[in-house]
């Protein structure tokens, strides 16, 4: 009896101890993370505006921002653009390319790995806005790409105007591939070489080894990386804003750009927060989807 009570007391005491340690960080989380999210949620039901009549007094407008969102054709276009950008640059581009680079660099000599790695990493360590400016001057009308084309007497293309989505997707691939490459390099290095050797002895082809052994072995990493890259890409703003500004028209208007335009160009903060929640929802749905597939 007494033993039990002592142990339970120590247990309880232990419980308290971890709480002491966590309190400051919980408080910070509450203050700087949970509270703003709740506030955003609250503001999305109001007519919050930066200027104009609405800025005078905050009014509760119910679901007005949300109904407006459902009737706004640009929202649909923005979601669509966000998904194209996501699948093109993150899921296909960064993942596949990052994986391929990591795979090709496996078992190569150190110097080669180092040089290649540095080149790919250069895009990633460059700050987003610097990256965007480089890409702008690469794809621009009088940009590097067109200069190269005209050198070979190939007709010039106004990249940022005719294929803007392709331009920002390529830009984001260049900027972000290194992250996936590093993750996959680490994962591939952990694949035991004995299994692969055994497979070779059993007469499996290279492709069979890749699809039957290597990929299933690093499935966990693939899903985790997919989730990280997806969430990073959903929030990409600076790169697109600096390269195309969301244009021409709405061809590259993704949700973050659309949100910015509503909040800080049209001064409709309430509507902007409603759109930001849509973005949050999209992130949550995709994350849940990845987590579930991870469990399987």
């Amino acid at each position, binding site marked *: 009896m007494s033993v039990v009570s002592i142990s339970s007391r120590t247990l309880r005491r232990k419980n308290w101890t971890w709480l002491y340690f966590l309190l400051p960080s919980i*408080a910070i989380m509450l203050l700087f993370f949970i509270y703003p999210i709740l506030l955003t949620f609250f503001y999305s039901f109001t007519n919050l505006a930066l200027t104009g009549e609405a800025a005078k007094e905050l009014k509760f407008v119910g679901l007005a921002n949300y109904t407006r969102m459902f009737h706004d054709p640009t929202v649909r276009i923005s979601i669509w653009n966000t998904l194209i950008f996501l699948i093109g640059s993150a899921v296909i581009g960064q993942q596949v390319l990052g994986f391929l680079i990591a795979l090709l660099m496996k078992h190569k000599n150190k110097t080669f790995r180092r040089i290649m790695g540095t080149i790919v990493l250069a895009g990633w360590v460059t700050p987003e806005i610097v990256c965007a400016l480089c890409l702008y001057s690469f794809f621009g009308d009088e940009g590097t790409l067109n200069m190269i084309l005209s050198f070979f007497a190939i007709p010039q293309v106004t990249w940022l105007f005719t294929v803007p989505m392709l331009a920002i997707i390529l830009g984001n691939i260049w900027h972000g591939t290194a992250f996936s490459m590093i993750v996959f390099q680490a994962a591939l290095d952990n694949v035991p070489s004995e299994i692969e050797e055994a497979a070779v002895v059993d007469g499996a082809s290279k492709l069979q080894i890749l699809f039957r052994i290597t990929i299933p072995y690093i499935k966990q990493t693939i899903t985790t990386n997919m989730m990280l890259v997806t969430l990073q890409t959903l929030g990409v703003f600076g790169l697109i804003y600096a390269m195309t500004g969301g244009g*021409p028209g709405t061809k590259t208007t993704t949700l973050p750009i659309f949100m910015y335009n509503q909040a800080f160009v049209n001064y409709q903060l309430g509507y902007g927060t409603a759109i930001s929640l849509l973005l949050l929802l999209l992130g949550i749905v995709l994350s849940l989807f990845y987590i579930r597939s991870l469990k399987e």
Partner: protein
Amino acid sequence: MKKANRKWGLLSLALLLAMAVGCSSSGSSPGSGTTSNEKGNAQAPAKEGSDKGATATAKKTITITYRDDGIGEKGVLYKWIKDVASRYPNQEVEIKPTPIQASEGDYFAKIALALKSKDTAPDIVTEDTFMLNSDASAGFLEPLDDRLKGWEDWSNGSFIEAMKKGVTASDGKIYGVPYNTDSRGLWYNKEIFKTVGLPEDWNPKSWDEVLSAARVIKEKAGSDVVPIWMNMGKATGEATSMQTYEMLLYGTGERLYDEASSKWIVKSAGITEALSFIETIIKEKLGPPLSKVLNGQAGNTATREYLPKGKLGILLDGSWITGNYLDSGAAPWPEYKDVLGFAPMPTNNGQAPGTITLAGGWALSIPANAQHKDEAWDFIQFALNKENTQKLVIASGNITVRADVGKDPEYTKMPFNEIATDYLKNAEFRPAQDKYPEVSTQIQSMVESVASGTSAADAAQKYAQDVTRIVGQDHTIEK
């Protein structure tokens, strides 16, 4: 163990407290040097004996916020404020420029945020007249009607009467004193006109004459000359709305907003006609390449590159573009006075009043949250008297809002000043409505879609839907 626990508990509590103190905003501290406390302010020693009080009164600091586009102390406004402040007779106040570095669009957002709070609101703020109404109805600005009554210059005809409309909000009150304005018209390259056999003293009487001149240029001037350039993209923002679409729409006699019924006009023959004009230019390839005109730099490309290099025949743009060509400008071009002509924009069929221009401009306003309203008002009266206003508009290449400056030889000898001021006779303003900035965004989308090949009818229909969604069904009207 217990002791240790308590220690941890205390420690984490202390941390929490520290954080709470750190996060609670210290409301009394001046946000950006905008408030001047009686104590602890570094101040120039007040003149001994000049004040009767036993204690030396602190100098009051009047802050002026304006947009700095990145050139800092080289900026026209900065130099002007410093100059005016140095000659300001009242030595009891110190005039301090507190610029905001931002692009034009961001400036409005940053101003709105600054005006919200007593801690950050300046004493005087420069307001673009198109945002004046929004900021006034948000309660950010001080109505100036009572103060203006006591200012002789305001009522004795020194100010051009039409310019007072630009600073009047929808509640009928005046919220700023204008210090410059602008007009819009057709800039054209006389050398190109001469080469293709068009009159060097060009004065088109209708839209058809503008188009036929462009056709002649296209036919005879060679393929590297753009016949006519207008801003047509979303990226050029307000320039597309005002310099292009509104110049056309108002030229048809239609307006954006029906003052009589207080409703936005979402459908009218004028809208279709204005869009058809743009459509014609695109279809007949009389305009600039789309990739050049649909990006944010389009305005600069036209004024700083195409026009000076003789690659552009006609440009529908504002009176201020010559500021680029001064020695202090972004693209010095001494010959501009002789090469360029500035023709008024005709109404579509030449009907009365014959020509049309929209006017914008900037004003000095006093924020509702300003600390020293009276001192600010006194300074505004001094800063915007004839002499000081004249210095400012000459240095910046803008048009004056004062009739007496408009007659001054010093001002009229600047090329195009007189003619640009003359166009203001028929000046129209953008609707002083809250929703205007949002409607303007829809205008830009509409114009850009026509430029990209959508038909005028489809674009007009989408505009009607979009505007209806923004302002509400009961605030729209079809004509």
